[in-house]
């Protein structure tokens, strides 16, 4: 059993699907972090079998929208004075801007490059988003 020291003030990103942790780690730019970060892969989990965990010993601002898109089952625990003060369960965001890219060559975003790519959640069960302009569907798997 691997033991990692408690963090005083910071964030624990828990219940990351095993194998997805590196994506979250990279997206948060934690490889360049000037504070302590613990990255645990394949930790045992009662519900998930295996999971990845990231512990950040610093209070940083996280875009929960994008984190939800990477893995909507993630839990974010906010730690203050070594205690969990807030537990945030993520879900797929209703609207994402500048994250998913529309691949429809007939979409106006393909030629008008200044237009931000905006998607709206249309099917939460299957993680389907539709382009605001052309309605072309995109799966969150495309982002992951």
């Amino acid at each position, binding site marked *: 059993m691997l033991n990692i020291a408690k963090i005083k003030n910071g964030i624990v990103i828990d219940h990351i699907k095993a194998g997805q942790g590196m994506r979250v780690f990279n997206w948060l730019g934690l490889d360049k972090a000037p504070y302590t970060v613990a990255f645990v892969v394949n930790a045992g989990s009662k519900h998930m079998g295996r999971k990845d965990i990231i512990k950040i010993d610093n209070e940083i601002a996280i875009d929960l929208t994008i984190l939800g898109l990477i893995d909507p089952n993630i839990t974010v625990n906010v730690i203050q004075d070594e205690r969990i003060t807030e537990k945030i369960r993520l879900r797929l965001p209703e609207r994402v801007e500048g994250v998913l890219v529309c691949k429809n060559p007939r979409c106006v975003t393909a030629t008008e490059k200044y237009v931000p790519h905006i998607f709206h959640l249309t099917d939460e069960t299957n993680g389907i988003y539709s382009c605001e*302009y052309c309605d072309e569907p995109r799966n969150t798997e495309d982002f992951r």
Partner: protein
Amino acid sequence: MSEGKLAGRHLVEPRDFSVGEMEILFALAERIIANPGDWKDACRSKVLATLFFEPSTRTRLSFEAAMLRLGGACLGFAEPGSSSAAKGESLADTIRTVACYSDAIVMRNPKEGAALLASRFSDVPVINAGDGGHHHPTQTLTDLLTIRSLKGSYSGLTVGFCGDLKFGRTVHSLAKGLARYPGNKLVFISPKELQVPEYITHNVLAKEGIEYREAERLERVIGDLDVLYMTRVQKERFFNEEDYVRLKDSYILDTAKMKLAKKDMIVLHPLPRVNEIHMEVDSDPRAAYFRQAKMGMYVRMALLASLMGAA
């Protein structure tokens, strides 16, 4: 709700207007049909810009005729070669500039979502006259007004769509439009290669509890229909020649098939028609597609007058 509520609004997709607002628009169109002369100066001194980044004869002429009959004037271009887009100008800049010269903009553009984008950069109403294979809301207004005028209602009808239902944007828009009214049943008649997309059947019809079924042969279902909406089946859409040969005649409306239809069924077509409706059908009183084209002009008159605050 007053007509004034439509003043200044955009029409990008059919559902931009509520059922109540559509009702007001159709009532106005019927008033114009009854006394067109009363509206000859409604848009006097107003200017309509018609920006056609893709060639269109029918829709453009229909809008221009509507504006001229309201006493207004039109300016614009009929093909992209003569627009500033050919010089590489962004759509946003084109729209911002044209909005300075006009009281409303009608635009057809091959890019899907172009009308929505244009509406975000325009101070004057933008009317979508077709954005690629996406939306064509004034065709839906035309279709609904025609059905209402000739059938007395657009509820409780069995409406058949025949032909290319996969790529036909007029079909998608009208199916969604009819789904807003109670008691309609839809029948989709097409080869399997050209079936109506799942996003229409699953996301719209099933969600709203609209009864629908799919069929492969027109002659087997035509007798059930109150309205038949024809579209063209193009050979190049088929995956193999054998299926095309087997099914092509099933999607051509002729007098033999009309004999199987109800006496009061109406036949609609967004036009242009090529060979999917035999010319011998034109003299059948149930053939309503040219009356439909005229309805298109009247509903566009009602739309322009409403959006420009002249109704």
